[in-house]
């Protein structure tokens, strides 16, 4: 096990490092899972011959064949449900859904089957399934391709929800998710695929329950995950220029939430800004904010701030889309407000 990154990852000198991308790291994780465990198979629309709609699975069909890298018709409810069935029967399916908006066609299977079967059967059934999907906006894909609905999924008991925001987590989360006896939804933010990073050559599995401190600071905690982590880090840079030391948290797991790590940070900084690409009303940011208030009320120097997407279906035009999304300057402004 590699240890979880908290900022700078120590590089094992003996093995060296590789330059990679988020996309390649995901692919390497899939390759490892397919190679190491014959119960694992990948299934979804265009994962095989096309190479994946975002090229994550490129080359895997050639390497593992069409049984284990299985192209499906456009039948989200059918093949997600089939993944649940195959998991019940002892396999370890990785189901890819092209984007979270399309996962709504399979929501019935995810919520009414995957999330309930263990409990509803009195513990007889287990659904060791991983569902991967792209989430988020920023590519001018408009309202039916751009939403951040992982917060909705995080509402549902019976499933786990994780969001790799770094190359290291893209590489390491899948294996751990596959070892989990319950369904895990893995959200890949669409703007991260081309992100580059350095990984130890022997980079491997990572924990999928704990939040990570990506940057330490004493003045304010910026809580983020997935695509917004990078906006929070950029905001922390700006804030540092004016003498505000922001601590940046990467939630990594949206369900369960790592209350202890969040609370430890807020107890230190006494201030928090939650950054979320989901909508504000009833969103994940509301949950995080409520928990901070519940657990750290007497440690807080001011109200928890939130920077979320505007309450609109994400529009196409670039200036409107950007106006709808959380921006670095809004995070900076929110942090300055709470720091006072």
């Amino acid at each position, binding site marked *: 096990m590699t240890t979880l990154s908290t900022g700078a990852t120590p590089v094992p000198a003996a093995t060296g490092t590789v330059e990679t991308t988020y996309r390649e790291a995901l692919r390497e994780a899939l390759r490892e899972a397919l190679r190491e465990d014959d119960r694992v198979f990948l299934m979804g*629309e*265009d994962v095989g*011959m*096309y*190479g994946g*709609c975002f090229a994550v699975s490129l080359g895997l069909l050639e390497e593992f064949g069409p049984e284990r890298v299985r*192209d*499906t*018709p*456009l*039948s*989200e*409810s*059918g093949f997600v449900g089939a993944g649940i069935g195959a998991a019940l029967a002892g396999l370890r399916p990785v189901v890819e859904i092209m984007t979270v*908006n*399309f996962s709504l*066609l399979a929501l019935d299977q995810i919520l009414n089957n995957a999330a309930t079967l263990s409990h509803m059967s009195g513990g007889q059934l287990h659904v060791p399934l991983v569902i991967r999907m792209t989430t988020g906006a920023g*590519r*001018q*894909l*408009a*309202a*039916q*391709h751009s939403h951040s609905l992982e917060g909705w999924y995080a509402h549902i008991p019976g499933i786990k929800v994780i969001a790799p925001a770094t190359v290291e987590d893209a590489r390491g989360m899948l294996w751990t998710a596959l070892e989990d006896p319950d369904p895990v939804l893995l959200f890949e933010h669409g703007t991260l695929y081309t992100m580059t990073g350095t990984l130890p050559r022997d980079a491997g599995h990572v924990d999928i329950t704990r939040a990570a401190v990506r940057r330490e600071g004493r003045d304010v905690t910026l809580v983020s995950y997935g695509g917004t982590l990078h906006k929070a880090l950029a905001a922390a840079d700006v804030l540092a220029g004016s003498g505000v030391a922001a601590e940046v948290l990467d939630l990594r797991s949206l369900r369960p939430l790592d209350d202890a790590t969040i609370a430890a940070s807020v107890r230190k900084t006494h201030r928090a800004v939650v950054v979320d690409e989901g909508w504000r009303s009833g969103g994940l940011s509301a949950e995080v904010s409520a928990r901070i208030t519940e657990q750290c009320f007497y440690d807080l120097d001011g109200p928890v701030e939130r920077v979320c997407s*505007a*309450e*609109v*279906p994400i*529009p*196409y*035009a*670039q*200036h*409107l889309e950007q*106006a*709808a999304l959380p921006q670095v300057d809004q995070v900076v402004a929110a942090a300055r407000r709470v720091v006072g």
Partner: protein
Amino acid sequence: MTQTLDREPAADVRHRLDLLREMVRIRLFEERCVELYSAAKIRGFLHVAIGEEAVAVGVNAVLDEGDAVVSTYREHGHAIARGMSMDSVMAEMYGKATGCSRGRGGSMHLFDVGRRFYGGNAIVAGGLPLAIGLALADKMRMRPTVTVCFFGDGAFAEGEFHECVNLAALWRLPVLFACENNLYAMGTAIARAQAETDLALRAASYGIAAWPVDGMDVVAVEEAADRAVDRIRAGGGPCFLELRTYRFRAHSMYDPERYRDKAEVARWRERDPIDLLTHQLTAEGGLSAEARDAMAAEVTAEVDRAVAAAEAAPLEPAEDLERFVYTETEA
């Protein structure tokens, strides 16, 4: 504006010249879109229907003003054939305030309620239930209209499609299912996605009239659509047309086309719907080289004007971001 199909010869030539012009308008418009995409003027996902123009033009030619159309994300041709101006479509792709959806929809979400063009849907099969509802309402109000729903061979695999054909058949709704079978759903060839690839046969199993049509021959498409629409208007219940066509270009601008070989594309290009009709009319003496050039020049000028207008058009003010999330009632 239903056309009678047995026209006298001169009128028939004029009519086919109109069909040709419509196809050329769509072709040149979309070719310009591809260029503008490369120039980063158009962003997001762009799906062109180059090669499939005969479907859009042939079906739209038989529709009346009161009829409704529901489409997909590959809908520029459907929109233009339905009578939407190039200006409003191009401006939409530029994300401008003058766009048909005020810049909020982009290429995949063209709407024009005045023409009963209900979009522009980027969820595969997502438009089908809307078409059922539009047709249901028209039927309940005893309006003599038809709702056409365009969708692809890929959509045929979605549960929503099967739910909708059943509903339409059960309630004898005035719906024309216009299935654009271009043999691929993104990178998945039809035989790799459909256990039975004869889509008309399968649609017929719902107890509706369904037949395949040469989707590269605009006259054949028009005739089939005319027959289907007549039947639907006469209360005969829904029809399904499997329009056999082909997209000459990639699925979208991001597609490296690893899943089909160039020879296959080249073979289909020999059946280019625009070339087919051009040759036919030329051979009959109905289209001179000069007239052909003039048509291309006029259409190019129309595209140029649409681009110039889109370039010059204003953006929606960012302060208006949250408009239209709910219906705006007049004060």
